[in-house]
């Protein structure tokens, strides 16, 4: 990592926190001006590489030098906007950066297939705005700035989801419903921030935490907490607030689904952790009560209900979308344990889930690219016609179930251990039942892919078709990562543990 840092221009390492947001924003404007789609893709690719490198540099800086506080525009923190990188958000930056890069490599053939050639450049531009917004939410230390970046990413997300309309017009209604619900969520969040500002007179999150601790809590801060949890819960697809997600994921372009499923809800979940643990303190009575009676309960219900819903879906991407809601439930359960072990298990599952769902949605995208299939029964025989993609899908699918030798097992293992430490037997039971349900819906997909014969046309069985290497490579990397990080769990577990310690510090 020092080697990487030394390759950068002298100023880049110092200004990395600002650059990681500014570069995609500027690149979005450049991409919009490109006359042809592939050129805009080139701009996007260069940007994604820069962001991935910057996130690695930031990881290096934070793990050696501690918290980085960057005063935007030279205004010192409590007054100006502070960009703050610590052990909690650096894994998220890394996740968005690396998975974003893999998704962008995947994008070229997939987007060329799904988006009209004249809209491609604008599509990449909107994607880059979304990318910048997600990175901004992750890196900022200012509560109102979180809202602004959240909306920057959300508004561009609505447009890129709606671009799926070229294949299926239901993308439009899905995007509209997401827009209405997402805006309600963001407005709830901003009401909460307003209450916090009333109570503390500051917008800097670290400063807020100090003032709240000194002044104690009252009805205003409790209302703020409720509004913020509901608002961010909506963005993170926390169980009863997830209704926008299945359709949005099912009808968006494949590349968008792969990217959003592995980053967007994760970033909102991070923002939730940041507010619940850093701004409010987990020892405050109404916060610790919300762990047991809100997050844990909601998490367990999501694990059950969304998994059952997933079993009965006919559209393969909708099935995985419901599974995503269930997986958010696992993370909420980890958060709800309110212990460092629980939180780190939740964060580990967050990273692992990005690896699985990224690979799964990419594979579904590859199937759609070659054969135009999206329903579960249409997946029949893909094990014979597209063996490489089907292998990647299988590995990631088994990881989703939590089969040993995959990362899904690792994070469920840590969740179970944390639940046992807490004495929550019912949570362990819920984890087991939910894993069985996951087995049921993944088995449906895998049975269709491997057990059934490929469709035949006039007695001629469909021929083998290889997906383009730009689709196969990122998908393969993610699938291999699902196995690799089981055997070398230390980097991810270490990151998750350091993140949990950073927010639960001093306890």
């Amino acid at each position, binding site marked *: 990592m020092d080697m990487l840092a030394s390759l950068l221009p002298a100023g880049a390492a110092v200004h990395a926190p600002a650059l990681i947001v500014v570069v995609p924003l500027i690149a979005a404007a450049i991409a919009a001006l490109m006359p042809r789609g592939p050129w805009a893709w080139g701009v996007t690719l260069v940007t994604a590489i820069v962001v991935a490198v910057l996130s690695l540099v930031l990881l290096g800086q934070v793990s050696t030098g501690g918290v980085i506080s960057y005063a935007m525009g030279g*205004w010192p923190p*409590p*007054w100006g906007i502070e960009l703050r990188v610590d052990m909690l958000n650096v894994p998220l930056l890394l996740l968005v950066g690396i998975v974003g890069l893999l998704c962008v490599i995947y994008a070229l053939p997939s987007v060329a297939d799904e988006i009209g050639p004249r809209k491609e450049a604008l599509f990449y531009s909107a994607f880059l705005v979304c990318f910048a917004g997600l990175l901004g939410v992750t890196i900022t230390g200012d509560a*109102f700035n979180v*809202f*602004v970046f959240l*909306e920057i990413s959300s*508004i561009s997300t*609505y*447009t890129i989801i*709606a671009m799926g*309309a070229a294949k299926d*017009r*239901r993308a*439009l*209604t899905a*995007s*509209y419903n997401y*827009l*209405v619900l997402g*805006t*309600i969520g*963001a*407005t709830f969040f*901003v*009401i909460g921030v*307003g209450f916090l*500002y*009333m109570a*503390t*007179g*500051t*917008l800097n999150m670290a400063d807020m935490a100090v003032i709240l601790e000194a002044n104690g809590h009252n009805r205003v801060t409790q209302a703020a907490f409720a509004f913020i949890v509901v608002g961010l819960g909506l963005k993170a697809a926390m169980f009863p607030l997830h209704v926008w997600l299945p359709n949005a994921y099912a009808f968006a372009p494949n590349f968008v689904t792969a990217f959003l499923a592995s980053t967007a809800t994760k970033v909102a979940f991070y923002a939730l952790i940041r507010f619940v643990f850093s701004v409010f303190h987990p020892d405050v009575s109404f916060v610790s009560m919300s762990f047991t009676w809100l997050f844990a309960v909601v998490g367990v219900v999501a694990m059950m209900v969304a998994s059952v819903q997933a079993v009965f879906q*006919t559209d393969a991407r909708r099935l995985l979308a419901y599974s995503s809601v269930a997986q958010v439930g696992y993370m909420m359960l980890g958060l709800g344990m309110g212990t460092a072990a629980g939180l780190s298990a939740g964060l580990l599952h967050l990273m692992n889930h990005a690896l699985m769902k990224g690979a799964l949605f990419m594979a579904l995208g590859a199937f759609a690219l070659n054969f135009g299939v999206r329903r579960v029964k249409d997946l029949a025989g893909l094990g014979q016609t597209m063996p490489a993609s089907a292998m990647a899908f299988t590995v990631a699918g088994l990881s989703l179930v939590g089969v040993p030798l995959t990362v899904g097992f690792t994070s469920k293992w840590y969740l179970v251990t944390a639940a046992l430490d807490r004495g929550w037997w019912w949570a362990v039971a819920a984890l087991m039942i939910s894993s069985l349900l996951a087995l049921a819906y993944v088995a449906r997909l895998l049975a269709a892919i491997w057990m059934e014969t490929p469709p035949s046309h006039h007695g001629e069985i469909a021929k083998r078709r290889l997906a383009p290497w730009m689709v196969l490579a990122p998908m393969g990397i993610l699938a291999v990562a699902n196995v690799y990080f089981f055997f070398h769990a230390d980097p991810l577990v270490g990151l998750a543990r350091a993140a949990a310690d950073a927010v639960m510090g001093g306890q």
Partner: protein
Amino acid sequence: MLDILIERFNYIPIIILMMTGLYVIIATGNLVKRLVGLSLFQTSVFLLYITIGKVFGGQPPILVDSGHGEDAGHGAETAAHGAETAAGYGADAAHYAADTAHYAAEAVYSNPLPHVLILTAIVVGVATLAVGLALVVRIRESYGTIEDDALNAADYSLETGSSE
């Protein structure tokens, strides 16, 4: 009871607007009307922020040079720090008192920071509304309707029709 309401009279229209907006979003099946409700809902929050910036007896936050000899010397320095103190010390009453004691008495001003925040939020609201309306136009182009019931019916027939 009445005292409590009168003390907090600024919240009453905000709550009415907010609930109206939310009700419209839930009650109407027309996609454009739903966006109207959404805008109303957002606007009520803008008002919430604006009203919390108000300080009784406060002037617009423009730095007033009191004209005293010693203050004139501080002129340049005060101007440079003006925005910073105004933004930073904002709604915090304790800081505010210290602030007013430090400067001349007529420099009691309303907190400008919420206004600045809401300028940003208004831009966000406009962008959301624009994207929402653009989506409604596209929905009307491909479905021929902007009523929720009709849309659901069209999607349902599509699903059942295409499943052979």
